């Protein structure tokens, strides 16, 4: 039973690290800030969740704390990515030239310079 738990924990940690690596690869390869954020957000969230859960299972005394950490990462990670993406757009970082549509362009709320 204990061995099984350790195996599951190790697998989760491995999967988490793998997703974090793939996310880093995406950040390195993707062409513009928005696509890079996509890679960054998704893989850091699931990667970190999987890794923390693995640590929590490997060391059951830490499991409750691990669960709280997972909850906070889940709540805050997308918010920070949204803030970075929004700030980039307002500061005028262009979309990659291969992008096919930009509905934000003609809309006031997306323009930079305002307070918001």
């Amino acid at each position: 039973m204990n061995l099984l738990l350790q195996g599951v924990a190790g697998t989760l940690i491995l999967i988490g690290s793998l997703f974090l690596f793939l996310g880093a690869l995406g950040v390195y390869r993707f062409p513009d800030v928005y696509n890079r954020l996509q890679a960054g957000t998704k893989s850091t969230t699931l990667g970190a969740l999987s890794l923390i859960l693995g640590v929590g299972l490997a060391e059951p005394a830490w499991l409750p704390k691990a669960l709280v950490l997972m909850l906070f990462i889940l709540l805050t990670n997308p918010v920070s990515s949204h803030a970075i993406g929004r700030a980039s757009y307002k500061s005028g970082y262009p979309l990659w030239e291969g992008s096919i549509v930009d509905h934000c362009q003609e809309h006031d709320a997306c323009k930079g310079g305002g307070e918001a």
Partner: protein
Amino acid sequence: MAHRIGQFLFTALVLFGLWLLFTGTLDPQETAVGALLAAGIALFTHRRFTRGGLQNLAPGRLLCLLAYLPFFTWQMIKANLDVAYRALHPRMPLNPGIVRVKTRMTSDIGKMAVANSITLTPGTLTLEVDDDTLYIHWIDVRSTDPEEARRLIPGVFEPCLKRIFP
């Protein structure tokens, strides 16, 4: 007044639950301090912390939340496999753009839940929120028509989120 008490109780319960998880013990002394602190902090913060109060714990909403979690986890795994595929593919199949979609959520917290869910799930990132309009960066734009995009992106989450955050 009853409403304020509900808000206070809900805030204190959440804080106390977090305390229990953080300390990881049911030792009477620790628990007592935690209960005191939770009550004290809730006394000052309950009006900012929650609007609905104890209604947040209604069984229907909790059940919906429980049902939403596995669905959401699955969406998140798909999102990661999708990013991994694009990052590993030699030619990087990207077809990005920013599309406008309307959300049906009306409350602020509901909009936040939809925006967060969108950000964490396949190929989409919420860039801007303006009233009920979301501007979403889509890594693989499959439709530029707002109605069709609405069905493809927030439409997936809204039926359930609408019940959790009415």
